[in-house]
């Protein structure tokens, strides 16, 4: 066990965990931030996507020992009132079905739009290709990302 100081959603936390603990489980079990989802545990599906220093990162493969000194943002910290343009577009388009993958989708989309504020449909599809939605809400995800890019 070791103590780690983490900056998550602009708040400082200290956790006492083993160094190999993936950030995903620190967030979920220790910080009670359960919006970041566990699904494959091997970085294949994107359900656990968070931002580390602004970059979309698979938290299931990211050990806590690397997270000190980094700026970590989860779905809970994306906006104060769920009113980030991407969240608003997700609601407007009614993207989710079961909803389980959607926080990961939103985190991938927000990070992508930071880098590419006016993407083409093909660029959106390319950027979102790494996130699985088992309900296949993909066409609505594309629409919502496009909508968010236009309302920024």
């Amino acid at each position: 066990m070791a103590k780690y100081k983490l900056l998550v959603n602009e708040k400082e936390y200290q956790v006492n965990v083993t160094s190999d603990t993936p950030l995903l489980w620190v967030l979920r079990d220790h910080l009670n931030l359960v919006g970041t989802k566990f699904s494959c545990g091997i970085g294949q599906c994107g359900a656990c996507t968070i931002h580390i220093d602004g970059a979309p990162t698979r938290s299931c493969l990211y050990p806590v020992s690397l997270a000190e000194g980094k700026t970590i943002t989860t779905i809970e910290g994306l906006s104060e009132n769920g009113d980030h343009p991407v969240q608003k577009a997700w609601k407007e388009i009614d993207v989710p079905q079961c909803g389980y993958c959607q926080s990961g989708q939103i985190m991938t989309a927000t990070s992508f739009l930071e880098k590419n504020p006016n993407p083409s449909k093909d660029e959106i599809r390319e950027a979102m290709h790494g996130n699985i939605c088992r309900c296949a809400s993909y066409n609505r995800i594309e629409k919502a990302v496009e909508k968010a890019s236009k309302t920024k």
Partner: protein
Amino acid sequence: MAKKNNIDRRSFLKVSSLAGGGLIVGFNFLTSCKPNVKPSVDISKLNFHEFNAFIKIANNGIVTLFAPNPEIGQGVKTSMPMIIAEELDVAWDDVYVEQGDLDTDVFERQVAGGSQSIRHGWNPLRETGATVKQLLINTAAAKWGVEASECFVKEGVIYNSKKEEITYGEIAEEASKGEIPANVKLKDPKNYTIIGQNIRNVDIDKIITGKPLFGLDYKKEGMLYACVVQASAFGKNLVSFDDTAARANEGVVDIFEFNNKIAVIANSTWEAMRAKKAIVANWDDGDNLETTEEYSKKLTALLEGKKFRTVRKDGNVEKAFKEADKVLERVYDTPFLPHNCMEPMNFFANVTDDKIELAGPIQTPQNTANKIANLLKRDVKDISLELTRMGGGFGRRLKGNFAIDAAQISNIAKKPVLLVFSREDDILSGTFKPALKYKISAAIKDNKLTGYHVKEAGINGNMYGLIPNFFPAGCIENYQVDLARYRSNITIGAWRAPYTNFFAFAEQSFFDELASELNVDEVQLRLDLLQNVKNTKDKRIQYSAERMEAVIHKVVDKSGYGENKDDVYQGFSVYYCHNSYVAEVADVVMEAGIPVVKKVTVAVDCGIVVNPLGALNQIEGAVLDGIGHAMYGDLKFIKGVPQSTNFHANRLIRMKETPIVETHFIKSDIAPTGLGEPALPPAIPALANAIKRATGIRLTKMPFIEYKEIFG
């Protein structure tokens, strides 16, 4: 529209005042679904625990509706309350929806499965809303000293002819003392203000902000986390294990054997997962360990054999084939498939001497509670079960083996635990769609179809068994369906659109081949066959030829099927299942020599569309699910060991492979039917028929991606 109300109201509704003022109505919509409900006991002896859903109207007019059925992404947590709200006549903006919990006393069919929630709920949910509305009106009329018939309601406000008004909230508590009215009027669908509107998922705000909703998000004071070690092969048993190294891991609370598995309990999920890896388990050699190549041969042998169970036989198929000029015969092959829910299996259990608390994602709460009660030799009344939102189901959460594991672990450990399966654990305890082969044969004489024979060979289960009366049953004079299967250690279960999901691939591919053999138009062939089942006296036939024709015409019209199009190759299919009618046309283009599906046009008749927005989502999702699994879905075995246990090997459809889905509904006043499943089966043959047109190659085996000559 007046409707005779034959519900025993006492067993259906209970009305009383809400603590803090207002009205609460408990209703058992399942009771009303049963045709022969026994009269209930005296209402004074009933209590609210005997009702499985509620309407609450608070003094301030806010209405809370408890959604009765489990939500797996099929949208019933939104659409079922919409039906109540419509007849109750309240503004949707004033409605809050909560998930109803399990009450083991009453639950008869609180199930998510088979696309049946809306179909079964339609009448009782409307009657509940209408009855409570009438109760409120009657109460207001008595207070005003006017006739109830001169009062009317708009968005939760009652008005009378003297232009007096009173809100539901103001009259709610008084109404709780009133008599439950009988023979209430239901609305004319023309006057619907909520049904037919686009209503967003009621959990949308929680989903987009990451609030706890799902089973894995469940937390309870003092809760520990559990993982299980299971056999790596179907058919092996635990002999012994060494947990010395595992116990040395930090955070480990306990490790023990149960039910041919090993449980690891720790202070956190990761600590349990890590300790699990350090366990050294010894398994026996097992028996009947399945290997794909071998069971494929066994299925072929079953198809060619003589041991069948005949589930429908019309006319004389044998004679038709003997007298035929030509016989067309094809074999279709579909693999085992896992469900791959995004949320891995999990369940919370706290088994104590006093009670058993359960919580989690389950499609069959009552059945699971009963099984746990039996297993632990406890009264089912001791069990409470809180339903969480489910991160997908697709049939996997119909079987609650993970919930039973959680209860057993908590019972042994005497601690509250959240059992968390990894994706690999989910496969090792999976309830797969079984591997199946179909042989369809057609007898042709004088260029006419004279006989039709379906044989199905399955592992552990026969999927076609329950549906021998669907199309083309009743259309062909000599028609026979035969089933065969053998027993195996691989566990199977329902998979989205069970019975029909991949049989539709075989049947609707075969009809295109048959049309080609007869040299007739493939759409016309289906339409001609349907003429034969119109006005049938066969009570077993439950599909309507007219409704099937309508979706065929609609999809042909909207997709431009049959028109010459440069570089677009179209495939058609039509299917009836889960009480709904769906026709689809897939558009395929060749890109770099490979067929790519770009668009699917869908025509659907599901009766009244309760929530068009949700309905479109379901149809699109089902079409893409069908296409994704047809293209990539597979699960192979070597000596009982599943060969693909996570998403790196179990390929699912992703963003860039997703075609546009364009859906058209048949306008209808017929009672609604479900939509979670019916659009999936016809997607696969529509794609296969389009690929045939594009490449000349007829696909008869899933997954399609394994056709090297097409996909490289």
